[in-house]
């Protein structure tokens, strides 16, 4: 069972602000997900290599050749806030 502290830690890493009333249900739901996945632990997998990729397609690489970049006005048009030539964001230190 995931406890309150863990929920708050994960929320902080995910930059989520949880209301007091959300913490307990979140703990319950996350625990259910983890318990579901933990079922795999019932199997004896000592001789099975961990699967990082479902389909093993190796070796697909890209030649080092330039493509066309996006025009800056198109790029900056996606941004909620712009200053001069760049994306304006709240200071991460603020």
């Amino acid at each position, binding site marked *: 069972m995931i406890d309150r502290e863990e929920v708050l830690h994960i929320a902080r890493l995910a930059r989520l602000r949880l209301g007091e009333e959300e913490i307990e249900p979140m703990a319950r739901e996350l625990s259910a997900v983890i318990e579901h996945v933990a079922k795999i632990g019932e199997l004896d997998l000592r001789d099975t290599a961990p699967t990082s990729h479902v389909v093993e*397609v190796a070796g697909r*690489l890209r*030649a080092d050749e330039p493509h066309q970049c996006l025009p800056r006005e198109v790029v900056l048009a996606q941004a909620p806030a712009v200053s001069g030539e760049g994306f*304006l964001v709240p200071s*991460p230190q603020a």
Partner: protein
Amino acid sequence: MTTTYEPVIGLEIHVQLLTRTKMFCGCELSFGEPPNTRTCPVCLGLPGALPVANAQAIHFGLMIGLALDSELAPRSIFHRKNYFYPDLPKGYQISQYDEPLCRGGRLADVRIHRVHLEEDAAKLVHVGASGRIHASDASIVDFNRGGTPLAEIVTEPDLHSPEQAGQWLRLLRATLRHLGVSDVNMDEGSLRCDANVSVRPEGSRELGTKTELKNMNSFRFLERGIRAEIARQEGILNEGGRVVQETLHFDPGSGEITSLRSKEQAHDYRYFPEPDLAPVAVSETMLAAARQAMPELPSARAVRLQDSLGLSAESAHLLAFRPELGDYFEQALQSSPDSTPSAGAQAQALANWVTGELAKRLAPEESPADSKVSPEAITVLSQMAAEKQISVGAARQVLDRLVAEGGDPRTLVEQEGLAALDGGDELRQIVRAAIAANADAAQRVRAGNPKATGPIVGYVMRETKGRADGAEVTRLIAELLG
């Protein structure tokens, strides 16, 4: 009684790779282009965009692995390193975790832990009155740098002093530069270095608690930062305190070390395999291409210069670790007209001219190939001096002229009348006059003080405008006063 401590230092070095395009998309790398003009849906992290690894970056990674004597993984995978910061549009950095491209290895006396590939973050410009990161309210993001291929090289904690760390980093830089895989410019950030520092009582085998010093952007700051951190840790321990494991920032201006709890306090990066990228399988063809592309490395070159040309260890080292000097030297050697039995001595003399007198006259890090002194000219000059056609002093004068305006040393010697006076009558006459003009000194030399020849030699050199061979003058003085 104070305890003596032994510093234990490991380095983490990031180098931007000199590919044409970014690590996972075809945007060209930026060299001072206007902000946000080198972006696409992949490096902006737009939904649905899929990364594909750059074959050239893998190739460079393999070359670095070969140069560092690492084990190259036949299969490696990329991971997502999750953290939120405005320089990272996807909310994660694509990096490598437990299956890196290269493992282990060694460069000189330092073991390599691993080498892996990842993408660089974007550039943040903090907007604030003081310009300091703490005081700003807003930041502006330029994504041109975001996605630039990086190789991260991690050493084992095998370094034991700030100077050794600096020296070793210079060796690594020379090696990487010679490979041609990176600009390795610390000022411009294409080579960045973090240091893990701890101290332990001398003789202890246990490692102390380490701190991580971030982003020291010059060799001087690296050494000063490590020195300051060692002193700080020793101070804490001597007062009975405990070092806290943390990330630190060294301010070269004030010499102060401050805690840098910014990006991710908990270092809880929740790595997991990047599902959008296929594993990298290094084929025999890729390995062969990487081996094929390997130049002679500085350490091998030093050995060759010493063994086959008979250069001194010091000269061989200088020429090998400053490839621009080494290449120039070898080109000059090629232009040498003969390979006489005295070839070894000639090579050493030429090496001395290149690494000494010539290098001294150039700007730091300037390549002699970019100077006005052609490799042929320095060879001719070195030979004329070796054969005593001109004195060393005259040769230096000629070199001054060559550096300033180029040309042929033989012509310059002729124009300036710098040809050496041979040991004949003319020089003998001048030495005789010098003795007559410095009777006191002559008296002291006769009395058994050989060092007293100074004023006599000085007189001869003035009279001959430095054209006389010093050894010959000394011999003549001894003969005439004998």
